[in-house]
């Protein structure tokens, strides 16, 4: 079973990279972009465990290592 984890900066935490990317897009003439936020995407291959167990385990993984909840939030997608 596969899982996807998205780690993004919390709203209100400055994202200098996102700001620089937004500026570069507008230099390219790609207008209409209001804001860019950069985050991390992790693809995880799980052992054969149930979806509920997988969610519990990945939630713990995010809280304890994969995300820093002072500045980041995370979203877990299971399956696929």
């Amino acid at each position, binding site marked *: 079973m596969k899982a996807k984890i998205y780690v993004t900066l919390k709203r209100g935490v*400055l994202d*200098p990279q996102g700001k620089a990317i937004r500026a570069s897009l507008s230099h390219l003439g790609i207008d209409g972009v209001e804001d860019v936020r950069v985050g991390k995407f992790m693809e995880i291959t799980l052992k054969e465990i149930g979806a509920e167990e997988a969610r519990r385990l990945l939630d713990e993984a995010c809280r304890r290592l994969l995300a820093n909840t002072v500045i980041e939030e995370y979203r877990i997608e299971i399956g696929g």
Partner: protein
Amino acid sequence: MKTAVLVFPGSNCDHDAYHALKHVVGVDAEFVWHKSSSLEGFEAVVIPGGFTYGDYLRTGAMAKLSPVMGAVRRFAEGGGPVIGICNGFQILLEAGLLPGAMIVNDSLRFVCDFVHLRAVTDRTPFTRGIPEGTILKVPVAHYQGNYYADERTLSSLEERGQVVFRYCDPEGNVTRESNPNGSARNIAGICSEGGNVLGMMPHPERCAEEALGSADGRRLFDAMVAWLGERSA
């Protein structure tokens, strides 16, 4: 009086810290590999700068899981003095021994320069005898030194006297221009509630001798030695 200098894979200021302690200040210093789970016999701990584990995931995120960090936690809970410098500060934040987190510098550039620090409190073992308002010239070298904490945490740090250093200009004015990385409220260093755990982005170990452009960093280590001396007296 024996001090520990922790060494993780990717530490690179460990020898500078060892040199400052042993050859400049003149106290006994020993390297402690991160696999060690004991700090028995040590009276102070330095977590030096570097790029532990290549800054994978986040700065300090891997190092916080090393066995030695459990020993650091117990050492800190027992009131022992701990100083985390640069990456060492990032490790202390990740380990939850200090509040807040580091994000990328607002300039998006690695900053490597001398900065000025305004001492805010003398309640830590490393700033004892350094009066509030003292200006120190100390170098920084980092890409992720932009200190972040939510407003409530920032106010609580100020109320509880946990802000130890702020970036300032050579005259001691805390200004936007003197902030090298965008840190909230110009914070360059903070301490634990008890005051014994200090984290700071600037490098006192790199400026402990006049030949290095400033000897101001030595004052922190001298303060630590005096504090330890008083404690054992």
